[in-house]
């Protein structure tokens, strides 16, 4: 069982009242409301929190990135990854991840990641994402080619890591006449790639076909089970049997010394006016061509206000009831986490501990309790339930490195 600590690194020092008044807190919410003095303080607090987390026994940091919005201060996850590669010693640095379609030059991204892998002495897990629609718009990247760019950038990055250079790349979205980066990853054949997601079936199927672990982001237990059904089915069709080493989960869990304090801080998980990524127009989150055509009809009705959000806007109480937010003392949350582990059997677990304006002191208390009590207990439960993570079982980093493939019916013919 591999457990990691996550925070969105919220820019909590933004004027929420103005956000509410304007009606959106993403993409077009003016950066005149960004305070770099508070930003400087917060970046350094977050950095100190990761260092502290490692001291408290946390074995992994999950980092991500977003753009043009207060809900996440990291505009480039490789920056924090680089710093943590140098200032921490043991914890894995898990990127979930670099939004590949935003890369105009995936070879450069491959170089950056190879450098981080070497500096961290092989602690990097360079996960990849498509990036939400707003990320495309914030970076001038064509949303209609998001999936194509994601897949091709992935292929190019892995080639840059594993193929002897120089070679040539003549793709649809990327053309490089010389690919020969003089920085390649320390981990062989290449660092483990994990893929997080929340909605699209295409990504689950794609991850399963690559044999990359899929990390379900804060989905309900029922939704998570459906994800594993699809993943496992695709894996079987691909020729292998998926197990806990293919399954990851991210959950909002705030722990504190008292239940009251934990509840107060856990309410901060809804700090973005109840939205995951802040208030935004649906066409920013899902620009045309970005989402799966099967949702088109449903989406356009939602986009013009004729239908409810497909995700809904559940209250705090509802999310607690649905098991999407846990809070309490370590003793209170451990049994709840056990239930998730028993029911959905992931071996990779991200704990989203702090969000919104949880104070630095309370965030550190949460981290201490996670590192000293919650995570060790989870690792014990993991052992008991046989939830071995990809490192423990030395799972192949990609389908092509599998040595246990079942003969497929069509291959037998």
């Amino acid at each position, binding site marked *: 069982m591999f457990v990691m600590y996550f925070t969105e690194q919220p820019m909590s020092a933004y004027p929420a009242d103005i956000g509410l008044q304007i009606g959106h807190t993403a993409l077009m919410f003016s950066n005149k409301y960004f305070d770099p003095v508070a930003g400087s303080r917060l970046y350094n607090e977050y950095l100190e929190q990761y260092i502290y987390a490692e001291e408290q026994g946390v074995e992994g940091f999950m980092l991500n990135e977003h753009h043009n919005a207060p809900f996440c201060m990291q505009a480039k996850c490789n920056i924090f990854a680089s710093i943590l590669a140098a200032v921490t010693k043991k914890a894995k640095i898990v990127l979930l991840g670099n939004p590949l379609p935003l890369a105009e030059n995936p070879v450069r991204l491959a170089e950056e990641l190879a450098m981080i892998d070497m500096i961290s002495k092989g602690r990097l897990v360079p996960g990849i994402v498509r990036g939400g629609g707003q990320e495309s718009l914030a970076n001038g990247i*064509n949303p209609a080619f998001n999936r194509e760019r994601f897949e091709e950038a992935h292929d190019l990055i892995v080639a840059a890591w594993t193929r002897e250079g120089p070679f040539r790349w003549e793709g649809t979205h990327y053309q490089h006449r010389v690919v020969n980066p003089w920085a390649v990853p320390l981990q062989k054949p290449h660092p483990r790639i994990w893929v997080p997601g929340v909605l699209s079936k295409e990504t689950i199927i794609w991850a399963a076909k690559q044999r990359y672990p899929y990390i379900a982001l804060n989905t309900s237990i029922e939704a998570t089970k459906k994800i594993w059904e699809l993943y496992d089915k695709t894996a079987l069709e691909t020729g292998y049997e998926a197990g806990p080493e293919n399954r990851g989960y991210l959950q909002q869990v705030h722990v504190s010394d008292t239940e009251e304090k934990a509840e107060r801080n856990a309410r901060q998980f809804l700090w973005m006016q109840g939205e995951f990524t802040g208030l935004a127009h649906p066409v920013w989150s899902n620009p*045309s061509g970005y989402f799966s055509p099967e949702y088109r009809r449903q989406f356009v009705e939602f986009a013009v206000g004729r239908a409810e959000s497909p995700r809904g806007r559940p209250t705090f109480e509802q999310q607690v009831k649905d098991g999407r937010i846990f809070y309490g003392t370590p003793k209170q949350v451990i049994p709840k986490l056990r239930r998730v582990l028993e029911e959905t059997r992931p071996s990779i677990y991200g704990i989203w501990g702090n969000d919104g304006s949880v104070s630095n002191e309370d965030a550190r208390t949460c981290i201490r309790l996670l590192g000293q009590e919650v995570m060790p207990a989870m690792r014990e439960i993991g052992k008991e339930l046989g939830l071995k993570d990809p490192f423990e079982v030395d799972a192949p980093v990609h389908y092509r490195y599998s040595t246990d493939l079942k003969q497929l019916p069509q291959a037998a013919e």
Partner: protein
Amino acid sequence: MAGWSEHDFQLGEVKLHVWRGGGGRPVLVLHHDIGTLERLPFYDVLAEKFDVIVPRHPGYGVPERPAWLRHPRDLAALYQWLLADLGADRASLVGLGFGGWIAAEMAALAPRDFHRLVLVGAMGVKPPDGDIMDQAILSYIDYAKAGFHDPAAFAKVYGDVSTDQLVAWDLCREMSFRIAWKPYMYSQTLPHLLGGVRAPALVVWGEHDRVVPHSAGEAYQRALREARFATVANAGHCVDMEQPDALARLVTPFLEQN
């Protein structure tokens, strides 16, 4: 009223849907980025005098699309192919908004081919002053409405917007992103190629166009060899839908010239 008929043409891998009505000199009408309704009063008025050919841009409003299309210039070449198949020589081009960009590309690529060029609120060149409205940050209805000066005129054309219409707009938008994302809705090379166009041009702008700044129209007028600039009162970007008769009064005599 002239009769209309529908045709499907197979141009390589592309199935092109075309509405055709009237008779006389051929006039190719190229629609907006929000697609087109099957019939519009403006098309009907033109069909009283001309052989009006209205293709639906591939992928605009329908899920089947040529995945290889990457630039409006590809559409310009495709419509030359269509005109060649139809044997429609010395056609006139009427380009509406985004369709104006395609028309301008066609004229620039084949400077001697066309009888007259009409550009109405045409995209395709970078406005020297102001920017082309970014539909990516607007909802479907808001963007379509922005094409009209008077909301009542929008309602008259689209009524209570149906879900089918919303789906069609989303498909149109996806196709526009695929072929005109960056730079958004203009070509950096087109202005340098317009000087060769021999067809006299009429550049028309809605007085209250909020989608494409007037400065773009003035840039077209300057770049073209023989162009007249005219504005239509009480009209936004979609002059053809908001003031069809006023537009036809400008366009018809211009196309009838010898």
